[in-house]
């Protein structure tokens, strides 16, 4: 079996780690690193019998993730201190939200930038407060800046001057020009508090955002990690709420994300062995392409299947903006690179 399939099977619990050939771990570790899943795998196999060098490496990863998550939560706390003095509230998104809420997908999860969601009408005030509290713009290219502000779902990225950490300020979860338009008012108004007083999306919205991030907002790079998030979130939420899948379907329709949520569920079933309720698992022909794209890595951790990757890249732009705008954007970018 290829290393990427071994990785997926280990996460899903289908592959017995003790039965893996010692040298097969090379590829599993490289692919897991490339997919930002090494910490997740290390936590998943914390109790498993492993070759001693792998056990030692995984222990390192678990310790490293604990530090990185504390740092990510500290960054959220810094944003809270900057914004709450002006009574500005925000919702944590993605990795930091999962860690703040103590969800199982955060076990071992790498967390990149701090992602927050705020209501559209507060964008100007939030921006000012962050700039006054030590964040600054990463790049000051006028076209990019205007592009972000006119068409995107977030402000241009900012970085903190002394802590060197990035923050992405979202006012909705997909670009404004995207074919799908989730309802940001619902996202903010139904957000829920965590034990530590942060705010995160409610379960159905969190899953909708996860599916949108996985399937509607990019070319599926890092897709295995996002799909693992989706799998853990839906499994845990469904275990706590028998009506979860029905409520999820209704909410996904409201956000125009029905097809994405349904496809993410089928992919989680295909790769991670998710259990789906009746009616959720009719396969679609295109699912096979998505699986192939998600598994497009060789045993050295290199991306493979170049044409398929390009196809998904083009698809991501096609979904993000209407053709005329896309043409103008690509033209401007191309001319500037000449």
């Amino acid at each position, binding site marked *: 079996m290829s290393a990427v399939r071994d990785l997926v099977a280990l996460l899903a619990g289908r592959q017995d780690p003790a039965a893996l050939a*010692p*040298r097969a*771990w*090379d590829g599993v*570790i*490289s692919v897991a*690193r*490339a997919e930002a899943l090494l910490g997740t795998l290390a936590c998943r196999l914390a109790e498993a019998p492993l*070759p001693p*060098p*792998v056990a*030692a*490496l995984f222990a*390192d*990863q678990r*310790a*490293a993730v604990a*530090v*990185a998550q*504390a*740092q990510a939560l500290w960054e959220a706390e810094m944003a809270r201190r900057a914004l709450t003095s002006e009574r500005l509230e925000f919702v944590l998104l993605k990795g930091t939200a999962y860690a703040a809420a103590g969800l199982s997908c955060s076990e071992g999860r790498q967390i990149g930038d701090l992602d927050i969601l705020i209501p559209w009408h507060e964008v100007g005030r939030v921006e000012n407060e962050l700039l006054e509290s030590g964040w600054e713009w990463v790049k000051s290219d006028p076209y990019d800046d205007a592009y972000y502000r006119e068409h995107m779902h977030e402000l241009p990225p900012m970085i903190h001057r002394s802590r060197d950490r990035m923050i992405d300020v979202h006012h909705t979860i997909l670009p404004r020009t995207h074919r799908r338009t989730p309802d940001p008012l619902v996202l903010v108004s139904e957000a829920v508090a965590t034990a530590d007083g942060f705010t995160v999306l409610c379960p159905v919205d969190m899953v909708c955002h996860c599916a949108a991030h996985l399937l509607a907002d990019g070319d599926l790079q890092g897709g295995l990690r996002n799909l693992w998030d989706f799998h853990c979130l839906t499994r845990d939420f469904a275990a706590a709420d028998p009506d979860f899948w029905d409520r999820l379907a209704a909410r996904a329709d409201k956000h125009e994300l029905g097809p994405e949520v349904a496809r993410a569920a089928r992919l989680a079933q295909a790769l991670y062995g998710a259990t789906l309720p009746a009616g959720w698992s009719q396969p679609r022909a295109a699912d096979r392409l998505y699986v192939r794209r998600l598994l497009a890595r060789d045993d*050295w*951790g*290199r991306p493979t299947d170049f044409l398929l990757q390009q196809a998904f890249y083009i698809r991501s732009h096609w979904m993000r903006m209407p053709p005329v705008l896309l043409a103008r954007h690509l033209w401007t970018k191309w001319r500037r690179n000449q």
Partner: protein
Amino acid sequence: MRYGTRLAVGPVQFRIGSDWAAPIAALNRLYAGYPRDEDRPADATVRLFAARPWRRRLRPSVQIGGDFTVPDALPLPLSMGLLAAEMGMNLQVALGWRRHLLLHASAVAKDGRAAILSGESGSGKSTLAALLGEDGWRLMGDEFTLVDPASGDALAFPRAVSLKNAAIAEVAARVDPARLGPLLAGTPKGDIRHLIPRADAVAAMHDPVRPALLLFPRFGGEAAVEPMGEGEAFVRLTEASTNYVALGETGFAALLRLVRETPAFAVSYPDSATGMALVDRLWAEAAR
């Protein structure tokens, strides 16, 4: 990948793959005397590959990749494949290693205790360590020194020493030519030639040693020794560490213990002989 090898330097097991045979053959020659465990899973993967398919044969140039890569890294001509491999290995350790506090420093040991030499490139830390390694010391490494947060001990990373420019002739005059790699002339870092550490240094590479002396050498100028306070040594070493921030409190505690328990000195020296004499003098004082 088409060609590959596996080798262990200190605690790190590498898997190195390449589109060409030559860099792998050169590595295997340099590391022939190192212990090998073909079945040990790799901690880190390095890839040497052609940036474009035709660059395999047509003016072949080596792109450095692996588990960790740096964006915009320039490829090297195939004649410098060995340097590419070395840079790839360093990169994986610098960006990926989390078990120990990683100091960008050379180190030598004697009687179970270590002198750690930290400095930027050009400070002469590699050359001094290489020369001391031929002069009664055990060479622990010329590039990285690892500090175990649990015990406070220093651990060796004795990769093949990367001798640069004038240091090549200086060291070559003292060692068996069979211990030298090929001359890589005109690399982006100047002329480079690798030195295979002595067999006893390689055999002892897993033996931890207690740090006894922290030195901050500076090549050039009058011979001078200046005691350094804990605070300055701490700050300098945070800058010399690639994983201090990532280790969080563990890294802080390990570094604090190191500077509290180890006397530190800034050392200027006009030539290697003087530098070695100063190290020996400080060592004799520290050992008392």
